[in-house]
């Protein structure tokens, strides 16, 4: 992916630049930071992810499987009398219902997130190794319909970028 990148030394400058990029209606851009910067997703105008819905639905599925499978095995497929308790004894089922809820919710969330992020991606270029240490970058792709190199370069510089380059 080609585009222009502005490198900042201060997270506040990055936030400010991201707000401007958002307000100018750029769509294909991203920020790179060495640690989570509070308020960045708001500054970038990112919408809420759909992932919580994946978690919720996978969790309910896990709950249903955990409940259904235990009822089937202990009351229908191979009924066993355990301590004189009823075949369908919900208190005994709860731990497994709980575990399967968590397991499916967790795995589905991680799996769907990896897929939607397009990972693993070994071909991606490294913009700048300092982005894993103490520098912050804002990248705008040349695919963006509003992409104008000179304009963006000026915007980045005005926002305090100490380096602007093409990648």
């Amino acid at each position, binding site marked *: 992916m080609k585009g222009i990148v502005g490198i900042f030394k201060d997270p506040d400058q990055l936030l400010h630049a991201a707000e401007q990029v958002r307000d100018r209606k750029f769509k294909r851009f991203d920020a790179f930071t060495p640690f989570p910067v*509070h*308020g960045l997703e708001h500054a970038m105008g990112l919408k*809420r992810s759909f992932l*919580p819905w994946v978690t919720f639905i996978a969790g309910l599925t896990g709950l249903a499987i955990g409940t259904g499978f235990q009822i089937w095995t202990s009351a229908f497929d191979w009924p066993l009398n355990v*301590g004189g308790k009823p075949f369908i004894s919900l*208190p*005994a089922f709860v*731990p497994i219902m709980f575990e399967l809820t968590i397991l499916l919710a967790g795995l589905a969330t991680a799996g769907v997130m990896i897929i939607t992020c397009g990972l693993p991606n070994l071909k991606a270029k490294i913009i700048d190794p300092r982005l894993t240490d103490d520098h912050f970058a804002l990248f705008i792709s040349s695919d963006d319909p509003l992409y104008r190199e000179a304009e963006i370069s000026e915007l980045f510089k005005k926002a305090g970028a100490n380096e602007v380059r093409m990648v």
Partner: protein
Amino acid sequence: MSHHTHTEFQPSSVRSMRFSAGAKSTLLVLAVIGSILTVTALLKQPARAWPNFLVNYFYFLALSLFGAFFVALQHITNAYWSVTVRRFAEGLMSYLPVALVLGVVLMFGTHHLYEWTHTEVVANDHLLHLKAPYLNMKFFVVRMILFFVIWIGLGLKMRKNSLAQDVDGDHKHTLANVRTAAVFLPLFGISFSVASFDLLMSLEPHWFSTIYGIYCFAGLVFSGFSLLAILVIYGRRQGVLTDQMVNENHIHDIGKMMFAFTVFWAYIMFSQLMLQWYANLPEETVYYIRRFNGSWWPYFWTLLIVHFAIPFFSLLPRGVKRNEKVLFGMAVFMLLAQWMDVYFLVMPVFFKDGPVFGWIELGTFAAFAGVFGLSVIRFLERVPAVPVKDPRLSQCLGHAQ
């Protein structure tokens, strides 16, 4: 929310909390009428009035102790998100000295409440006889005094330091509070556990559960954060807490804790139930047989729904935890759910067939709620609504995420 460009914070602009005249007179009416009803009930129908007294005594004591627990927890973790809401938790401690006085009143009801205070019963009951070195009036009173020494002594010490800092802004008060919190928290864990054994578990002296203290603690935090949410949102409505002091991220954090302890309560509740249900030992199941009998059975299911299912699914979406109006409603609901839970711990011992509800229940609750509310309000109206010179305050203002 451009948190990196917020305007300069003016400590002198911070006012004291204001409560509407309506709220205050309502609490006063509740306290007065409630007290009359409670005293009447204690004299006329002690067998029903004392269990009610205990329910409300424990419920409001836990709410007050939450204040001390919350303050200590924030100091020991060096938390900055909570600085602007901490004063409200400090306010909850105002009821602790009142609880000490009401604890003296409770001592007059022990004969109505606790089987182990009856010497002739203990003499003829082998198990109670064996437990007598612990379960006897003298040691019971000594323990209660010790608990209040810990709670009032250390809790109010942290509050005093916080108020002194409002004046001189000295960082030494924060450091002193971190040290006090380190002493207080383990002592609180033990003392609150044992207090719940003494006040509630010993209502059924043959039965025991080692997780009981944690169960009560889960309820304490569950209801405590709900009350904190109510006070903070009310403070915003009154215009005392500005957007700069408390924003939707603070509200979100309180909502997350309400949600977390909804799950924690259910987890602990189930941990106790499953082990005793599975093992099926007579001395353990007696507790559940009492509570699954008669109309206590639908009560139990109602409790599961109002104390777990409804708060869990309601607080699950992010938007709800950030919406003041909805969270306020949920917090009121959860406070009532916690009252139902304490009621469920006490009343089945005295009423075998099912729950009872009438003027005695309402009156006792009203009396406690009124006294509790007035003592908290009296404090909050006299001090700045946020700790104005706390060293962590600047990081708390405009708290993002």
